[in-house]
């Protein structure tokens, strides 16, 4: 029996897979590998697998985390090469660490670093510093109970302009992400559109560069 935390990236080709489909895809990949998943106890046993802060559809990522357990005893490198052999291309397992308990606690993840490539019909209208100088940034945010006017400023930890890969504006953003609070990139884009109405963001693509603790550190 061995438990692991896995760090993996998710590329362009597989960015539209929903979380549920991702979980099923991973189960099938493990079946292909012949590894023995640890199954949950109970009436309807399912493979034990926990994904930290599931990714939104359409977003690529460099450093996602997952906990998995296998009945078989394995070492870290073995598991990494087995998984990379069975996952569809676009997924790349980068690090595997054996865990006993809570050394890599997903509850410590509070932030995510995003790179946004934005297409705006008036690029000069976007000024991240002036957006952050507002005392409050209030937008309609989707919650479980519907849409609600929310101040998202406390959920934005940093915003800076960078050179874009596509489109005409690039932004690096560190946003709240985790069990406590989450700000999705699309809500930030809504805020920019609302507060800087001289231009309209017509499209953007998001890349989640890293999941971070409150000290802006990665788990592994």
């Amino acid at each position, binding site marked *: 029996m061995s438990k692991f935390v896995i760090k993996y990236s998710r590329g362009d080709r597989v960015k539209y897979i929903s979380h549920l*489909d991702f979980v099923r895809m991973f189960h*099938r*990949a493990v*079946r292909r590998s012949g590894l023995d998943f640890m199954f949950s106890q109970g009436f309807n046993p399912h493979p034990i697998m926990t994904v930290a802060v599931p990714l939104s559809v359409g977003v690529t990522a460099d450093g996602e985390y997952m906990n998995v357990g296998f009945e078989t005893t394995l070492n870290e490198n073995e598991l990494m090469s087995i998984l990379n052999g*069975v996952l*569809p291309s676009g997924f790349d397992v980068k690090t595997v660490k054996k865990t006993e308990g809570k050394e890599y606690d997903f509850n410590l993840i509070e932030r995510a670093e995003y790179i946004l490539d934005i297409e705006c019909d008036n690029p000069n209208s976007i000024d991240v510093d002036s957006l952050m100088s507002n005392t409050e940034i209030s937008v309609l945010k989707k919650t479980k109970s519907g849409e609600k006017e929310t101040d998202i400023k406390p959920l934005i930890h940093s915003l800076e302009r960078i050179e874009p890969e596509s489109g005409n504006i690039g932004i690096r953003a560190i946003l709240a992400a985790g069990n406590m609070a989450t700000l999705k990139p699309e809500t930030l884009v809504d805020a920019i559109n609302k507060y800087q109405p001289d231009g309209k963001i017509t*499209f953007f*693509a998001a890349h989640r560069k890293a999941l971070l603790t409150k000290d802006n550190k990665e788990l592994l």
Partner: protein
Amino acid sequence: MAFNERDKILTKVQKPTRYTGGEINSVMKNPADVDVRYGFVFPDTYEIGMSHLGIKILYHTLNERSDTWCERVFAPWSDMEALMRENGEKLFALESGDEVIDFDILGITLQYELCYSNVVNMLDLAGIPVLAKDRDESYPIICGGGPCAYNAEPVAEVFDFFMLGEGEELIHETTDIYIEWKKSGKKDKKSFLEKLAQLDGVYVPSFYDVLYKDDGTIKSITPNNPTAKPVVTKRIMADFDKTPAPDKIIVPFGEVVHDRVMLEVFRGCIRGCRFCQAGYVYRPVRERRSETLTKLAESLLSSSGYDEISLSSLSTSDYRELKCLTDNLLRITEEKKIGLSLPSLRIDNFSLELMNKVQKVRKTGITFAPEAGTQRLRDVINKNINEDNILKSVKLLFSGGWTNVKLYFMIGLPTETDTDVEGIAELSEKVLGEYFAIPKEERAKNINITVSTSSFIPKPFTAFQWEKQNTREEIVEKQDILKRTIKSKRIRYNWHDNKTSYLEGIFARGDRRLCKVILEAVRLGCRFDGWDEHFAFDKWMQAFANCGVDPDWYLRKREYDEVLPWDHISVGITKSFFLKESEKAQRAETTPNCREKCAGCGVASFKTGGCYE
């Protein structure tokens, strides 16, 4: 993160993984390394197409060639199509994302008549002229196959050629000829088609002239090219046990209709039900050995990671090694925590035991298909099952704890009277009676009987190919009789919409004069006719009116001496056999199945399979 124009569309549509490819076991190649870019086109959604066995077989076999890259092409759903047209994006293939207008060959599989509007719409979306005569050498070659290719006359003018029957060998032969033609500079498309027409199983529609009589019936169908055969006969795989089956299948990211490993147990059917096109066109019956299938199951499960497997064939109970196969499969499924889903089987002690092993907890519904309500009509259609068989089977089921029974019937069958329709209600009540005959303490609670009727559609290459199809009014009248005569509240009645059956009937026995109607319907916005949310009957009727074509004419009774639109095609069964069967049907005389006694249908000419066991 970098994005492209297609991302702008994909972020706005439902189920974007329908369009992105990249699934495990999908095949990527370098376009520079191949001679042929092949698009395998399934003219319906990804979820329907990816559930189809044929595409898996042909995709795999084509991609084993180093000179060919076969990719998948599905019909984009309406949200996607609207955005594509708005942004000027053309139909593309999933693997490369490249537009199919630049491909060499597009092979379109025709699984049902109601896909014709999608075929036309997809070519239009691809930027490819819809009619073969408008496409010169610079466009992809458009070929067709699948069950509707046996009478694809309504879309014949769209296609350069058809492959009739099983394609595992023929698709390679036609690809070889294409490569030869391409390497010689792709001059003169006609010379290429002439080479193809000499292959067994290839039908080049432009090489045949169809003449009509004053009364609208066909006068003659004659070859206008010396290479075209007067009659084109379908192809089959002679040794099915040795026919290569893919040992790897693509595993979709999103859920599809049949999301599991499918094992093709045998081809063909021994039964001879007179309405059933599949039962005739796939003859002769040819089985795979259980060892072959067991090995195949193991490799498919481990290469796909699926946790469910099912068996695929017509009338699976007729598989002679069924016990051995299911024993083997149960061993694998128990060891690997995999689900075995059974097809509908003839109910006897063996199948009940098997069902008990497979579904330990849940007792799912069991389906029976008596097809007709009275013994006389069951004899007419040669459905060799009697009331006694049915009642004994349901008694076994009810005693075994099953309470969910579905009964399938057809209405509108030849010679049918009101008595036959009422017989459906009577038989259903008798089934219910079997449940109540079991002492209360020995039966499970909550009996649930569902009666479903579909409308009979006469199909080419069946004993009923000459029959008149019921009008929509007649069908509604019969549905009403049933609604009135089913008394018990424990029997639920589902009926099939009469409008789609009407259209399906027109195209099933249609001729080349329907092509302009299909083009007009697509122009009016018809597509996805098999989908309730898209089917637009009024637009279809408008299209018929605009083209001056009377749709009802296609549902009429045909005379035995009439030239049928598919008379230049052969599935191996002689027309005289169909005629004999048609006459026997009128007299309610049955024909024994192929293993009881050879009925002399003609497929013995293939010199293989059930005819020589």
